[in-house]
């Protein structure tokens, strides 16, 4: 199981006229078969945090250790938009991110396409698929490298409610089946309650203001009383923490 250890993380963006602090002194640990959601208002540094964890951006200060036992953990990333290479077919998009080649690797990619119910689109180009289908390919791509840790940055935020709900179910099933560690960024509290075992809250200015377990049994019906109560409780906490204050 992958372990993430973030210590005293700070990220500044320097512009011509000012310095913007995106993340301020954030420390937390995630490990094992956890599904951790990072929630907070827009501009609180959620995506920046994932970009630092994935190595796309570097931290101004602090350390990030992502390990699997005594080695560096392998990361899979699902972005807000699918970010597929439009000139490669669906299956070739999955093959592009593999570090090895061969029939076994191809079979693995096909298996994950099948898991998101898109095996029939393997030879199509991304431009021939709907937004929801492209996002499912993005999820299959991230799972196909069999990562130790899965980073997901508001993957359903651009989708309609019905597609998003169906993809949340698929994601939960895949998480249960593959037992990956997942760090999931969202601004949707309901989504966080439905999927997570733990919720980390960030406020504007990138401060970590709460780290709470979600102790509800799976599967969680978003329309159930238990989930509604948990959601209401979290929203009350958010309000009391004054997340919008910098």
């Amino acid at each position, binding site marked *: 199981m992958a372990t993430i250890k973030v210590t005293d993380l700070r990220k500044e963006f320097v512009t011509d006229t000012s310095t913007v602090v995106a993340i301020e002194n954030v420390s937390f640990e995630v490990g094992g078969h956890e599904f951790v959601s990072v929630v907070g208002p827009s501009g609180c540094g959620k995506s920046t945090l994932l970009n630092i964890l994935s190595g796309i951006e570097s931290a101004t200060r602090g350390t990030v250790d992502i390990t699997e036992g005594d080695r560096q953990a392998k990361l899979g990333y699902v972005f807000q938009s699918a970010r597929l290479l439009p000139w490669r077919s669906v299956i070739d998009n999955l093959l592009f991110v593999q570090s090895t080649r061969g029939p076994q690797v191809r079979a693995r990619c096909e298996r994950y396409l099948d898991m998101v119910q*898109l095996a*029939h689109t393997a030879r199509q180009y991304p431009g021939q698929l709907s937004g929801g289908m492209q996002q499912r390919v993005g999820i299959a791509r991230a799972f196909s490298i069999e990562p130790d840790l899965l980073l997901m940055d508001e993957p359903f935020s651009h989708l309609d409610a019905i597609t998003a709900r169906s993809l949340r179910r698929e994601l939960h099933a895949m998480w249960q089946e593959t037992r990956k560690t997942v760090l999931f960024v969202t601004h949707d509290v309901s989504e966080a309650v439905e999927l997570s075992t733990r919720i980390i809250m960030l406020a504007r200015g990138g401060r970590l203001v709460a780290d709470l377990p979600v102790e509800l049994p799976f599967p969680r019906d978003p329309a159930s009383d238990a989930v509604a109560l948990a959601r209401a409780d979290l929203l009350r906490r958010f309000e009391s923490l004054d997340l919008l204050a910098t």
Partner: protein
Amino acid sequence: MQTNLRPRRPAAPPSPGGDERAARRRAERRARWLWRIAGYVFFVGLWQFTSSFLVADFIVPPPAVILTEMWDIIASGQVWVHFGATLRTIAIGFAIAFVLGSATGLLMGRSRWWEAFLSDWVMATLTTPGLIFALVTAMIFGLGPTGPIVAVVVTSFSYVTVNVVEGVKAVPRDLTDMARSFGRGPAQILRHVYLPFLAPYFFTATRYGFSIAWKIATLAEVIVGTAGIGFMMRQQFQQFSMRGFLAWVLLFFAFALFLERVVLQRRMRHVLRWRPEVAR
């Protein structure tokens, strides 16, 4: 790891409007061809009218006379000798320009320091009339094939560079970040992200660069060539043979059109088949 796969979903059925759309596309293609043929009929008709009623036919000979002359040039074998010479000049010159221009474009697009270092010089070659390069290379290299080749390199190079710079700057950061987040190295990102994204820019560069190369190669041959289409045009000009001159011009036009329509556009359609507007 478990492989508890769900049942495979059957392939999506063909959309009911598919046949109708295909028929519409076919009709559109037919209409485009008809308009193209109409364009030829109109301009050849205008030419015939001009030479019959407006200008003496030794100044503008009628189309049938020029076609006969073109056939004579082809039948005599001269066309292969001189087209071969011009094509060799263009192929060598443009290949060098393409490699140099692509490398310079990649460098300038990815580094603002290199852009600052080179941009004014590239702009200078882009805006300088080709005739100047044709004359300068003629003075430096004298009679023979080297001058025209160098003139082609210098003039086409900047067209390739400018297009590649624009392309490199437009590469979506989302895609390069995605590739980096999955651990892809610089060489893989260059090959699988940059180059495919730049393909349309390369094609635009090739079309413009190639058309410039044709013009400069012919111009340089007119000045210092010992063989080639430009050399033959000069000969016809010196004999004041409008017939021979126009026959060579039209052969040149036909060949350039063949390269554009048959070679470049087909290749472009194949490489860009992933784009919905090309796939149509």
